[in-house]
């Protein structure tokens, strides 16, 4: 009797777990279908080519223009700057935590990084708006601090926890025997780090970087509050830019449901979805490589 009960329990639990897994896949798939459906009705009214290649995003003018080139460039521009700041900083922090820091400092740094990950992005955006933006304006003597550079600084800050904690895992999982071998050959701590530990953990670090960048490109609130939201192609890092995410968030409330403008926002979402999907896919490929 007891045996049958255990059997049923096992059976049920197995099924439930299976169902959860399948549901996750189904939901992602449904979201994609929904985006595709809404987006495609947009391309009934507007040409795909003008959408992807057009420089001007004037949804309210007559006739309206829905060119997302400046938005895509805005997103990429902010992301690349954030990457240039957060990748070296994040990887070095991870190295410091994993290899150099004495235990007390290591613990403190790790909890600070975790705490950083827990701050909601509106809060980061808000703090950035009242502290960073005026600072950047004064420091570089520019008309407005609302620029892609300020946004990138804030985003770098937000990508750091992901980059640091995942890179640190990768660095810590380098077998001790590699380090031992290097030390026994007379390698200094620094030589061991950059000749053995870094190359050995590189796939994991690349994965961490890609995940961090995925977070950056999908980030909305902070960039909307800080980057200035001017939909034009920037000529310097101190120009304001507008990102794809900020556009969707800012305009969704003021469109008429079912209008071309409304559908155009879903088309942007579709582009964003494809970009993040590719980034995550690359990240996953790298991570899988380290695990082997």
């Amino acid at each position, binding site marked *: 009797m007891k045996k049958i009960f255990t059997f049923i329990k096992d059976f049920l639990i197995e099924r439930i777990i299976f169902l959860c897994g399948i549901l996750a896949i189904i939901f992602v798939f449904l979201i994609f279908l929904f985006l595709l459906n809404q987006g495609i009705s947009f391309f009934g009214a507007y040409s795909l080519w003008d959408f992807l290649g057009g420089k001007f995003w004037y949804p309210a003018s007559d006739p309206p223009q829905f060119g997302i080139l400046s938005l895509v460039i805005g997103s990429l521009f902010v992301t690349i700057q954030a990457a240039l700041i957060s990748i070296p900083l994040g990887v070095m922090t991870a190295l410091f935590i994993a290899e150099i820091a004495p235990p007390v400092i290591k613990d403190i740094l790790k909890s600070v990084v975790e705490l950083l990950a827990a701050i909601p992005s509106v809060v980061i955006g808000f703090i950035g708006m009242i502290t960073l933006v005026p600072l950047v304006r004064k420091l570089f003597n520019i008309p407005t601090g609302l620029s892609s550079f300020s946004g990138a600084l804030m985003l770098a800050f937000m990508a750091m926890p992901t980059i640091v904690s995942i890179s640190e895992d990768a660095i810590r999982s380098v077998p001790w*025997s590699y380090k*031992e*071998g*290097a*030390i026994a*050959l*007379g390698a*200094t701590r620094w030589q061991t780090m950059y*000749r053995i530990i870094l190359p050995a953990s590189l796939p994991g670090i690349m994965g961490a970087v890609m995940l961090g960048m995925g977070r950056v490109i999908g980030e909305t609130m902070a960039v909307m509050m800080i980057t200035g939201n001017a939909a034009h192609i920037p000529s310097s890092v101190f120009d304001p830019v507008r990102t794809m995410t900020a556009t969707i968030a800012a305009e969704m409330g003021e469109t008429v449901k079912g209008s071309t403008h409304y559908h155009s926002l879903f088309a942007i979402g579709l582009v964003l979805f494809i970009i993040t999907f590719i980034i995550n896919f690359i990240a996953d490929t790298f991570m899988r490589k380290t695990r082997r």
Partner: protein
Amino acid sequence: MAILTVTNLDLFYGAFHALKAITMMIEEKKITAIIGPSGCGKSTLLRMFNRMNDTIENIRITGEVCLDGKNIYNMKTEREIDRLRRKVGMVFQRPNPFPLSIFENVAFGLRIHKKAKGQVLKEIVEASLKAVLLWDDLKHKLKTSSLRLTLEQQQRLCIARVLAVKPDVILLDEPCSSLDPIATRRIEELMIELKKQYTILLVTHNMQQAARISDDTGFMLLGKLIEFGQTSCIFTNPREKETVDYITGRYG
């Protein structure tokens, strides 16, 4: 002539007394084997000679270990210690080639010490691989990852990596314990070949191995060096009762 001398060496891991009053002399260009049951302190002793124990926290050492008459535990700077490790190379129990190409594994020591580059570097890599009898098999795939090699090849590569920096002494900690009997015999032959040029210290579990290839043997038990002398004496005419018990198999 003795190249390494150990005088009254004690080592504590925290409160645990792992090496007790060890005194011994290691002859140049000979194979000295250290045998003894598991946990008796063989690896700990071996790791004294290249100051590998420095990487362990909470350790206390008293006594002297002299290389060419100089106490290596008087060295203060990292640079001196790094130089010591170049002179006293180490091969580990499990082959641990770096996750780099075969070539870069052998070149590693030369690169970090800026000893050679270009053509000279290539020549030293070739000579080192020849010395461990890997060259003929691998000369066309020097760029492939070292992790693809068989365990025996990996262990040979680790020996080549040490040879490339031209050490005086080579420490080997159970270098054959993850190899099959045939590979073991071949590595033993290699060690006999290497002793023409290098002083070799070999930790082994395998008494036959010690008897086959070593000139001197030390027997350790519970942190003490019970007996040390010519291998032929130790195995045919041991002085101490513990040694007799061990070599007749009474300790497992």
